């Protein structure tokens, strides 16, 4: 950040100890990570709820908190990557429902095995991402406008098509169609760990965070993502395939939407076509709390995961603490604000101490 203005300490150092190439201590590496602020906020929130609501620490409660976090976190993985790549997507909340509705309506209407519906829903989800990306590239409009338009169109399609095909605004139950049980086992089952049922979405979430982190930090594609988010023109000048990277990122978000959409479908058998609206902001909030910059080029996948975990803790902790529900939204907002402020403060301190 402050590489242009040389600090006094830098002047005193000999050239051999240039801070840009010299070894850093483990602590300063840790403090320099984008997600460090969120991590501190998450620990503070965890300790806070553990003190005010001891039931919060019960293993079954933690499993519930993790489940609540995972349904935000799965999307936050894709949304974080996209934000690092310099774009954001307002259509994610309804795109999740679009995917669930596609799988359900296709299987139900044509009487097909559920897995065919699932495969076609993946195509639909990737296509939504692809279309978002291609419109963005071709029109050069900001992603805010492009995805706002697709958000509205998908909201309308969800309602219109569901009612036109199924005759009702909620999709018909597909619980008795072939393949449902095996699909439920994959997308919406629980895993018993030492007597505690943990929802499978928690493991899917963790796996997705690990894969996304690996892509970001260890592959060429990860470098491309940071590059297009940092400075698109410079990235293009050094040969980064900007168009492919951006479209790929939108399709990755589509993929995450498909995973969550399938969970929604198989956890609840049927999907209401008006659901999902407003969730896009939760995903963006999780990514921002986790240290992704709204301007792109900075952030991490694990940060988005911690952001989702903070949201899950705040959301469920208020219930465990049995506070007056009238104040629920206020506390939620306050906690999100505090977490973000802690995030900024810690990050500034970490950067100035470099």
């Amino acid at each position, binding site marked *: 950040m402050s590489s242009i203005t040389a600090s006094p300490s830098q002047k005193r150092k000999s050239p051999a100890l240039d801070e840009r190439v010299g070894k850093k201590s483990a602590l300063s590496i840790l403090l320099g990570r984008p997600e460090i602020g969120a991590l501190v906020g998450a620990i503070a929130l965890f300790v806070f709820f553990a003190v005010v609501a001891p039931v919060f620490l019960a293993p079954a409660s933690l499993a519930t908190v993790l489940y609540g976090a995972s349904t935000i976190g799965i999307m936050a993985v894709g949304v974080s990557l996209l934000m690092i790549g310099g774009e954001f997507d307002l259509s994610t909340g309804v795109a999740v429902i679009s995917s669930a509705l596609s799988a359900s309506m296709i299987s139900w209407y*044509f009487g097909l095995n559920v897995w065919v519906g699932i495969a076609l829903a993946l195509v639909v989800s990737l296509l939504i991402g692809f279309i978002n990306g291609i419109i963005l590239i071709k029109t050069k409009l900001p992603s805010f406008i492009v995805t706002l338009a697709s958000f509205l169109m998908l909201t309308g399609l969800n309602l219109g098509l569901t009612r036109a095909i199924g005759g009702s605004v909620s999709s018909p139950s597909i619980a008795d169609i072939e393949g449902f049980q095996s699909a439920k086992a994959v997308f919406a089952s629980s895993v018993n760990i030492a007597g505690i049922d943990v929802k499978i979405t928690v493991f899917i979430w963790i796996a997705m965070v690990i894969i996304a982190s690996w892509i970001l930090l260890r592959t060429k594609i990860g470098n491309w993502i940071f590059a297009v988010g940092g400075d698109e023109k410079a990235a293009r000048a050094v040969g980064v395939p900007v168009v492919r990277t951006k479209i790929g990122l939108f399709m990755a978000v589509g993929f995450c939407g498909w995973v969550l959409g399938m969970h929604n479908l198989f956890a609840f058998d049927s999907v209401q076509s008006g659901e999902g609206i407003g969730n896009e902001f939760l995903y963006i909030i999780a990514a921002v709390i986790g240290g992704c910059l709204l301007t792109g080029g900075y952030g991490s996948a694990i940060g988005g995961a911690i952001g989702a975990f903070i949201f899950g803790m705040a959301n469920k902790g208020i219930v465990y603490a049995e506070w007056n529900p009238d104040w629920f939204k206020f506390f939620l907002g306050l906690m999100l604000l505090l977490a973000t402020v802690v995030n900024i403060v810690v990050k500034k301190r970490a950067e100035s101490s470099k």
Partner: protein
Amino acid sequence: MGKPIWRKLAITLAIIPALGLAACSSTGGRAPEPESNAGGGAVAATDRIKIAVITHAAPGDTFWDILRKGAEEASAKDNVELQYLSDPDGGRQSQLIEQAIDQGVDGIAVTLAKPDAMAGALGKAADAGIPIVSLNAGEARFKDLGAFAHFGSNEQLAGQAAGEKLKEAGIKKPICVIQEQGHVGLEARCAGVKKIVPDTEILYVQGTDMTQVESTATAKLQADKQADAIIGLGAPITMTLLKAKATAKSEVEVASFDMNSQLVEEITKGNVMFTVDQQPWLQGYMAVDALWQNNRGGFTIGGGQATLTGPAVVDKAVAEQITSFAQEGVR
């Protein structure tokens, strides 16, 4: 933009139908089309009139589907051209009324969830000589706002009916789950329950995301071991509460408001104690039919009082009788 992406896409799209052929399910799915009876019967010989039904329905709620079906069936019988419109925002709902006036409709049926926001537009409708009825919400205000009849259930009474039923079953500390914070009708239901069972607790959940409904309800059931029942205020919410109950390994009883076919099935299986139905089909049907009757002979129904379509308590015995109607989407 590289060509390969397009090509891959085209290949994928071409493969899909082939997959489909080999993967037909022999169970479940869409039932063969039933013979439609709507419009098949005799239609009223009166001149065709145009009626607008304008509600505050949020998009994608099954409750309003049922109400709309009632309005559609009455329209088909009464030779009415139906215009069904809705907007959850009070200001925009009143604009829909003004648009209906501009179009010269012969009658307006409106939900008065936000009566003050409707007052101006309904005044214009009255000035234009358009008869008005209210439905679903607005029992207290329909006369001031120029409606000659009201068809709906009383939310407070519905809550009390549920409370009585819970008390009968020996429930002491139910949790009343509200899916939209600050919704007057939903708050009134829980208030009605609380009036009969004073230890009722309220839990707010985000009704637009079922995963959040489930995890929040699970958290509550884990935290509150004294709770002996959980009440959903809408059929899809109750279905999700059943999952939360299983996840929390809780023994609470489950009760509900409103209906859909899955809920009726759970009641017949004994997994849900009962539901309090306000019979939305009847609200839609009666509203359109009352406007037609008014057009036919200047009739008014209800004698200036609200006509109640509920609460109708549906327990196991009733549920078994109405299963087929629920599947048809009229209950």
